[in-house]
């Protein structure tokens, strides 16, 4: 049965195949004026292979990936940890909420000029930008998740003998997981968008920087390769968190 299922054509691929075929035909027949600006799909793929073979794409991709992973991991971890504390402890929430409310609306890229002056052009700059980009949404989703746990569950745990710490560990955090994962999932994609923007503006390495170099050399094929990489990475990160959310909460969520 599974073998049959595996052999069944995935019809979702069809629109993508038609799109790529159209792209190839339109570009080959010069239906779009200025063919330099619209290379065929096959040329883009050839350049993709070339960039991988000469290591340019891999180097830049790894630079961006490491920045995203470090920034996103630390930002999310801090967001989840502080979110749990603020959601759980009203005094902490009241003390920190005003200042965080002021900082949250600032777009992550808005920090770029001041961070450039503070940290200079180096690895710390993009990582900090990603940290900020991940921290706030994850923080607020975690607070919402913890505070959104119905009082009935807390009371039930309390009556069954649980201490405050046990209630946090066994009731509040597990029940806040769907909210936490929503934050993580949304910000995973956002982290890639922000790192590309940061690299385009201020950092000499990474996919964003490669994009800017390709733009100055009028290499649309390389630009499209970078966009494809970006799209795949956003999708992979998002799918990873959907998978993790399903693993952790799928049975009951």
């Amino acid at each position, binding site marked *: 049965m599974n073998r049959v299922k595996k052999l069944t054509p995935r019809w979702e691929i069809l629109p993508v195949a038609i799109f790529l075929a159209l792209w190839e035909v339109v570009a080959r027949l010069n239906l779009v004026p200025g063919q330099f600006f619209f290379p065929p799909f096959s040329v883009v793929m050839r350049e993709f292979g070339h960039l991988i073979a000469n290591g340019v794409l891999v180097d830049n991709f790894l630079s961006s990936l490491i920045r995203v992973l470090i920034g996103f991991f630390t930002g999310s971890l801090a967001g989840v940890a502080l979110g749990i504390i603020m959601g759980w402890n009203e005094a902490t929430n009241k003390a920190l909420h005003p200042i965080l409310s002021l900082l949250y609306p600032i777009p992550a890229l808005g920090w770029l000029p001041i961070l450039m002056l503070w940290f200079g052009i180096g690895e710390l700059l993009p990582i900090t930008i990603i940290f900020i980009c991940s921290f706030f949404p994850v923080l607020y989703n975690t607070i919402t998740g913890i505070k959104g746990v*119905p009082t*009935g*569950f807390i*009371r*039930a*745990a*309390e*009556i*069954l*003998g*649980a*201490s405050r710490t*046990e209630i946090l560990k*066994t*009731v509040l955090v*597990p*029940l806040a*997981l769907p909210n936490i994962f929503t934050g993580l999932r949304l910000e995973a994609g956002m982290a890639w968008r922000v790192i590309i923007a940061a690299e385009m503006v201020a950092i000499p390495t990474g996919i964003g920087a490669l994009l800017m170099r390709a733009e100055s050399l009028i290499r649309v094929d390389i630009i499209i390769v970078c966009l494809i990489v970006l799209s795949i990475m956003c999708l992979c990160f998002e799918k990873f968190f959907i998978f993790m959310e399903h693993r952790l*909460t799928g*049975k*009951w*969520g």
Partner: protein
Amino acid sequence: MPTIELKNISNFICRNISATISNGELLVLLGPTGAGKTTLLNIICGLAPYEGSVVFDDEPIDAIPISRRRIGYLFQDLALFPHLDVRRNIIYGLSIKKWGQDQIGARLDEMCTLLNIGHLLGRYPKDLSGGERQRVALARSLAPVPRVLLLDEPFNSLDIKTRKYLRLEFKRIVKALGLTTIFVTHDFKEAEEVGDRLAVIESGRLEQVATPQEIFFSPNGYKVADFLGSPNIFDCEGYEALGNGLVKAACEGFTIVTVWDKGDLRKIAISPEDIYVSRDEPPGPPINRFRGTIVEEVSSNSLITITIKTETKDVLARIRKEDFLAENLSVGSDVFFILPLRNLKGA
């Protein structure tokens, strides 16, 4: 299991409530919505602030934290943890109290046998039916061996059939365990079926604590009578046995046939909503069928309470507004009414 004493309990809803619930007794706290029933349960388990004292077996528990009061509490919405399967829900309290694995396993088996839920252990609450959820929630409350069991309208969300079955099952289990229990409901029929004694609460005050029969036949004041739906009570002057547990009683000019096998029959009562009313003479033998004239109608929500005047006594009946209109009834209408055998209560 302890005797519970409530000594001058007051807070934002409850007003100077004092009562004693004996060891192993099943007391039903009965009252309308907002009367303070849930608040009183919350006071007993420490979830609501209060003045006065809650005493278990002569020991005040006011200073004991909620987690150490050893109370089983079945919430109205059950509050089963959605992220834990049935097994982990039931043993939650035991794991928290660091019971050994062998003890937990043995207690889990006991609960499964008692409530017949062994086949549900791997399921999550969202995959359970209403009745199954009730059983699992009860198992979770009973598993840590509570001293007292509190139940806040636990069967409210169920259909009538499941509800009736479960409350009988529940009573059997609680009695078998000998638990001192307080059961909250706003339904008198449920209360009289479940409780050893009833405590009627209204606007935060305890109006009457007595057996269901005492409350029904001798309500203490108009608030209790009004909450019970102002039952019609007939004083009986005499009766004769008809056999098969039936008696024919003469009560205030009415000859009423009822089920009775408990000695002297002094009163017969029936709730107004249990009386059938029609403009046309109902078919069947002329037993428990009477005639009268509607002299008053009082409308509330979807029901109309009518006063039917007979030669000897005014009788209250409560019928649906649509039936009232369909029968073309109004003040002054001559009507027939039936006192159904199975709805009559004797005392």
